[in-house]
């Protein structure tokens, strides 16, 4: 078996690298750069019940070693994604993780039920942590009981395993993780973006039209590493790690913190080839660290 292949609930991955939801559209743009089948999986852009047209522009602002975004879950709605985006992605040999978002619990349930039946959707990622939508999003991701209830409801209707994407904008990430694990989550994705803001010196106003947005990129990596390190010791479900990954070294660090696979987000914007580059470079790091298989590194920072 390949040294990079990993098995997670629902996901048989050639390697542990996937582009993160929201940073890769539905893959079409990146298919112009490389063969999407080289990826371990693809987490597609969030699906909501009805189409969403997102927030006003400007929607992005650069920060030190990071970026803020307030896209606002723009997507064509679950029906169109099932009819138009997923069949196209079926031409590639890569499992798809469908990111599910909503305003009300009922929206999440309906979207999850529908999209989990698509042929190439092998797992759901429950987006309870988007900071850029007024209703839903973060509210579901900051109250453990609400997150647990939602997880339970979605699990009941989903035909595939359910990963819950946790928000770092909470006081106790372990409590959130334990709550959704107890509610039946098959895995965790962590972390989503940190809520942040930038102000333009000339206009004296926030740069983003939405005022605040989600901070991503290398700037948030230490926060993600800390949270995965904490949570992975307290739960027994696997973690897809994310937050500022740019290189094979970063991937190794996330594994050592406790991740079993990783998602690359903002780095795709900086270098469209970043995912295949990381996949190519990982074996050298395994040699360097003298491990046969990448899974041996999971939790290496705290396992005795």
């Amino acid at each position: 078996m390949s040294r990079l292949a990993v098995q997670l609930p629902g996901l048989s991955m050639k390697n542990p690298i996937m582009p993160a939801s929201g940073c890769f559209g539905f893959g079409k743009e990146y298919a112009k750069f490389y063969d999407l089948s080289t990826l371990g999986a693809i987490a597609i852009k969030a699906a909501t019940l009805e189409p969403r047209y997102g927030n006003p522009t400007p929607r992005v602002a650069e920060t030190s070693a990071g970026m803020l975004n307030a896209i606002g879950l723009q997507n064509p709605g679950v029906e169109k994604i099932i009819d138009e985006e997923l069949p196209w992605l079926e031409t590639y040999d890569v499992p798809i993780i469908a990111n599910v978002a909503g305003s009300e619990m009922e929206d999440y349930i309906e979207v999850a039920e529908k999209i989990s039946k698509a042929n190439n959707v092998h797992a759901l990622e429950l987006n309870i942590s988007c900071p850029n939508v007024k209703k839903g999003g973060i509210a579901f991701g900051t109250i453990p009981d609400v997150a647990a209830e939602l997880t339970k409801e979605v699990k009941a209707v989903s035909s595939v395993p359910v990963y819950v994407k946790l928000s770092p904008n909470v006081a106790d990430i372990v409590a959130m993780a334990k709550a959704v694990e107890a509610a039946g989550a098959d895995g965790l994705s962590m972390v989503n973006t940190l809520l942040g803001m930038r102000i333009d010196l000339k206009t004296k106003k926030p740069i983003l039209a939405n005022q605040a947005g989600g901070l991503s990129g290398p700037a948030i990596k230490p926060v993600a590493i800390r949270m995965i390190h904490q949570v992975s010791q307290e739960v027994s479900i696997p973690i897809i790690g994310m937050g500022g990954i740019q290189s094979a070294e970063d991937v190794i660090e996330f594994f050592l913190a406790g991740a079993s696979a990783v998602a690359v987000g903002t780095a795709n914007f900086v270098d469209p080839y970043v995912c295949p580059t990381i996949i190519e470079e990982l074996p050298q790091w395994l040699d360097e660290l003298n491990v046969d298989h990448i899974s041996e590194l999971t939790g290496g920072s705290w396992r005795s």
Partner: protein
Amino acid sequence: MKDHLTIVHNETIAKDIYEIVLEGELVSNMTEPGQFVHIKVADGIDPLLRRPISICNVDHQKNQLTIVFRADGRGTRLLSQRREGELIDTLGPLGSGFPIAATESGQVAILVGGGIGVPPLYYLSKQLTARGVKVIHVLGFASSADVFYEEEFARLGETYIATVDGSQGTKGFVTDVVAERELDFDTLYACGPNPMLKALEANYKDVHGYLSLEERMGCGIGACFACVCHLQDDPTGTSYKKICSDGPVFPIGEVIL
């Protein structure tokens, strides 16, 4: 689509305006005026994002491309400090540019630029004149210290300058020049700040023309949905275009400015 291009020339040509010539194989793909390159201004993670910069000129014989930009923020200032011989991580060409076939040989095209919107019009003008199109340039700047490429444009066709403070050319905006001179044309091509584009659109609603837009971008290739704009003719308010990949050039009247 991505390569490291070598800086062969870097010069200040007006106040805070830099002209950089880059050389490399990637240039052979750059044929459409109005497209842009997405540049990593410095190695490392800060600044993190690339900067979209329009293509000002292309020399296929030498495999060289010229960019002209204003050193305005931290990223473009860093780019302006890069030296000859250094390599620049460049992605491109990106976006859809100005359709030169929209103007027939013998027809007149007016090219209207404002500030840092002027550079992409140069490669456009070269391609139009090569087709036998008569070009008129109307270029607007803040003051005479900001004016660049006046001679280069003048070599290709009639060129009028407007400055806000009146220190060179017509005092006022590009629209003042067009009105004052009663310029007649078949096609309008424009690139510049939104208020300028809005004014042109208001004046020439039914004119055959194309506008190049600017917006803060994330990926530059259409994946991140940062730079979307809405369509004018859209009763449901649900359609949109991505400036980076559907644009940056749109026909007059297509998108909401």
